[in-house]
């Protein structure tokens, strides 16, 4: 298709957004925004197919987690259904040295970082505290408290600058994920202030999925969220969050700006949470079926599939193979989740101090002895 500007149309929010792939699967070659920035992607056929595989796989793994929760095997689950493109597009735009700060819903970003998808299940199954080494994976722990990770990310990003790791084409950048509801939190606004003032190498990636649990977007803001960035002194841009290509292009450009020392960017990925906020929520109580139907037509996976088919980049056998592979991964994940061992009570003394302490050691020994005083005890 032709070169375009920020698209505006019936299904598109006022003010438009960057879109490179329409819901019908039509490619828009380049998009130039009002400030003169041009966005495009130049993927090989193999890379296009890879993105499709990512989208299908993260959706399938997510649906398995939803089922496991309904079957009593997980305490709770926050589904990413509908937000696959926002997560895969931004996750694939990260370079190995970049650091990501997720919320509790970024299963797709985690997957794109090459991390074993089982990692967060200990938290949701209640067999561990959801702790892992953020430095090992360049992926911070899931943060449940709304918005607080944006401050952690800001501090981390300021540290990157102090370490002299910005200012080059191969510099380091930080991405902080949060939702539309988090933009009403003080922490998020504080992190905007600090990042702006200190020119921190950070990308604020807001997945605007239209609802803060049950509170609709119009109760969160009077201006489009991306426009808030102007008040803090850095650029904001809105992208079609159901378009994996545009999300990739916009995130990559923002990350490159950050690593080059150009400071923060706020990205509003305009998307929709097709499922419940978490497994404890019932969205039919606060939104209309017609609204959900309208968003179904903008599905991130079906538009990429339509594009791949039309361009003959992929055929039926490829799609079938991806589905089968995702299914096999989901069943494998299920088996491993069911096999997760329950933690032993003494493990609560682990990870209190990095190198232990005499006091904790004594408490652990006493507690182990107490546990061992019961019949049939393994300890």
């Amino acid at each position, binding site marked *: 298709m032709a070169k375009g500007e920020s698209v505006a149309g019936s299904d598109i929010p006022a003010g438009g957004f960057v879109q490179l792939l329409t819901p019908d699967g039509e490619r828009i070659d380049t998009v130039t925004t009002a400030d003169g920035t041009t966005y495009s992607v130049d993927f090989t056929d193999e890379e296009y197919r890879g993105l499709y595989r990512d989208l299908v796989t993260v959706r399938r793994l997510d649906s398995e987690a939803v089922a496991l929760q*309904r079957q009593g095997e997980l305490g709770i689950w926050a589904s990413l259904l509908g937000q696959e493109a926002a997560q895969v597009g931004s996750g694939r735009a990260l370079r190995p040295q970049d650091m990501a700060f997720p919320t509790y819903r970024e299963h797709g970003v985690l997957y794109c970082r090459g991390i074993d998808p089982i990692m967060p299940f200990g938290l949701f199954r209640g067999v561990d505290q959801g702790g892992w080494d953020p430095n090992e994976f360049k992926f911070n722990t899931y943060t449940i408290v709304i918005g607080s990770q944006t401050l952690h990310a800001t501090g981390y990003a300021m540290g990157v600058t102090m370490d002299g790791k910005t200012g080059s084409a191969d510099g380091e950048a930080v991405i902080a994920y949060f939702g539309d509801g988090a933009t009403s939190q003080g922490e998020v606004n504080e992190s905007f202030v600090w990042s702006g003032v200190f020119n921190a190498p950070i990308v604020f990636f807001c997945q605007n999925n239209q609802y803060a649990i049950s509170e609709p977007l119009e109760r969160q803001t009077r201006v489009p969220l991306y426009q808030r960035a102007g008040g803090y002194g850095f650029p904001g841009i809105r992208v079609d969050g159901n378009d994996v290509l545009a999300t990739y292009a916009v995130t990559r450009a923002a990350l490159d700006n950050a690593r080059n020392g150009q400071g923060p960017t706020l990205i509003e990925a305009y998307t929709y949470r097709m499922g419940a906020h978490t497994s*404890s929520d019932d969205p039919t109580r606060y939104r209309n079926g017609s609204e959900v139907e309208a968003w179904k037509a903008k599905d991130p996976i079906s538009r990429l599939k339509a594009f791949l088919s039309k361009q003959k980049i992929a055929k039926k056998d490829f799609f079938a193979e991806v589905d089968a592979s995702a299914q096999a991964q989901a069943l494998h994940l299920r088996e491993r989740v069911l096999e997760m061992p329950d933690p032993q009570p003494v493990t609560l003394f682990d990870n209190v101090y990095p190198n232990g302490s005499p006091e904790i050691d004594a408490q652990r020994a006493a507690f182990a002895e107490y546990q061992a005083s*019961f019949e049939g005890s393994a300890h």
Partner: protein
Amino acid sequence: MSRIKEFNLPDLGEGLTEGEILAWLVKVGDTIELNQPIVEVETAKAAVEIPAKWGGVVTRIFHEAGTVVEVGKPIIAIDTQPGSSEEPPAPASSPAPASAPAPSPAPASASSPAADEAEAGLIGGPAPGGRTAVLVGYGPRTTSATRRPRIGTPVASTTATTPTPPPAAAEVRPAAPVGPAQETVAPVVRTGPVLAKPPVRKLARDLGVDLTTVNGTGPLGSVTRDDVHLAVSSPAREPAPTAASPATAVFDASREQRIPIKGVRKLTAENMVASAFTAPHVTEFLTVDVTRSMKALEKLRKRPEFEGARISPLLLVAKAVLLAVKRHPMVNSSWSGATGEIVVKDYVNLGIAAATERGLIVPNVKDAGRLTLRELAEALNELVRTAKSGKTPPADMSGGTLSITNVGVFGIDTGTPILPPGESAILAFGAIRPTPWVHKGKIRIREVTTLGLSFDHRIIDGELGSRFLRDIGAFLEDPEATLLSWT
């Protein structure tokens, strides 16, 4: 290991204790796949579909639709290896140990579930009616509440060390109705320490109750708040009273029906209480001659614009309300104590109270003031039809700004309706009866009805309420002339 597996109702939200089976999507004998939706369950938080945990053949469904099931209880049994050469499924006597009542505590096993025993130490303890009070995030444990016995240690008062059942008091299970049975139990005098939580101890001290004389019905025989209150109210706290008085034998439980408070009934009750105790209500009445309205309806029915439309007196009442709101916008408002504001709405989402099989609901016609009379007629019919079929979507029930309750359809003259929460006025529309009435100086038989308007006196003064009601009456007395003069 049995090839027939029983699936227990899981905690579907965070800290839920029960769920209602809405509908089974499979039946006994069906072959099902892993993750195939099998049942819809409604909890306090959400109505959800549960996917099958195993593939196989359904051998038993434990509860019919409409049943409220405790978390942790089996709901379905699935033969996971159908067609294998083992004995055919014998659903009636399911071998799975988890579901057997198994009175023996099976001491050595750490995994013996006592599914219906609440865990000791829950905040608040089991609440009346058998429900366990839950604050946030953590539900009652539905797995084992029993402890493994200690090795070679003396008997501790709170730990069962032998396979004998725990003290009688600890056996009162959450599911057992709290009631007369307790009052007939003789007060105990114990020697050991009394188990009670600090707030309960304070309550007992405040009320002058000696905890050692109170029967504990909480976990491990601990004394609960209810026990303390019961001890105060019980006429005989001293030595055991004689058996139940003769009167109680006549009105025993077999002659009482216990209906769980849930669903629409529960919601209605909460709304009524919330409204009745926050908004000071005033109700005014006006009796009006609606003969001309009835004639106007007849004329409307004959007009081509209304061909095929079902129109009723409710339509004109609705129109009267909408026109009167335009003249008195303040009645279409809500009290926002949180922000210290009165929110006056420029749109009328007109609620119509509807009696349905599931109870009272008040769906509303959105932005009813913008509809033509024909559109309004269709919207009202659609609203009532949907409500009767039980399919009213939640969005139709929220956001109402002003409501009408049509008690006339029950043959009632009028009433003093309670405001739906968030609304400031509600009109009761009574039966229309042929009545002797002074018309143009002579007594005539006229069609007469009585309107009752309840309003929130914090926002609407008597004068405004009276003018609003007077205008509704004026319209119904002469709709054609009123329409011409007001619009």
